[in-house]
């Protein structure tokens, strides 16, 4: 049975977004099922256009990693509790994001081999 990993992404700065997507894409390439749960300021990362110009020396452009994650079947969730705080709606997110609450995250995380918070 495939290993599973869940990562909570709680911020929108490169030090949060990069590890999340580097690990997510590599997990998918390693035959692991990967779930990314975006909460609080982390929701910004999956807003349309937000990541388009984010780069870091020595790493691929962030948007390239996000697109790869989607192609590779990484699951992405937006935290419904945080959405009103950031004044965003489901329509603001990139394609492939499902809006769910804490119980769904916990249900997924309870079955994961690796659980991370960034």
């Amino acid at each position: 049975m495939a290993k599973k990993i869940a990562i909570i992404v709680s911020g929108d700065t490169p030090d949060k977004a990069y590890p999340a997507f580097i690990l997510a894409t590599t997990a998918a390439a390693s035959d692991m099922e990967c779930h990314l749960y975006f909460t609080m300021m982390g929701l910004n990362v999956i807003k349309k256009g937000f990541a388009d110009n984010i780069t870091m020396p020595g790493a691929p452009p962030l948007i390239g990693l996000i697109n790869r994650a989607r192609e590779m079947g990484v699951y992405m969730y937006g935290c419904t509790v945080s959405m009103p705080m950031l004044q965003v709606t489901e329509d603001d997110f990139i394609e492939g994001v499902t809006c769910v609450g804490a119980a769904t995250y916990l249900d997924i995380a309870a079955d994961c081999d690796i659980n991370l918070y960034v």
Partner: protein
Amino acid sequence: MSTDKKADKVLDCRGMLCPEPVLETKKNIKSLEIGQVLEVLADDRGSVEDIPRWAKRTKQEFLGYEETDEGHYSFRIKRIK
């Protein structure tokens, strides 16, 4: 060990940054038949540890690697599943 058999496909990942060599290797190994060998060229330092571990994790056969005179790495992976 890396000259045992000519690779069936060569994947050039030189200039790519972590984690791209692993992602490209995953993508490309599927285009080989079972039993064929993929040669991956990379110059990302992390690849030396990453590619063998990735192969083991995904149950492909890592045949070995060498550092070339040009200063990059050449990995050989046999598709076995």
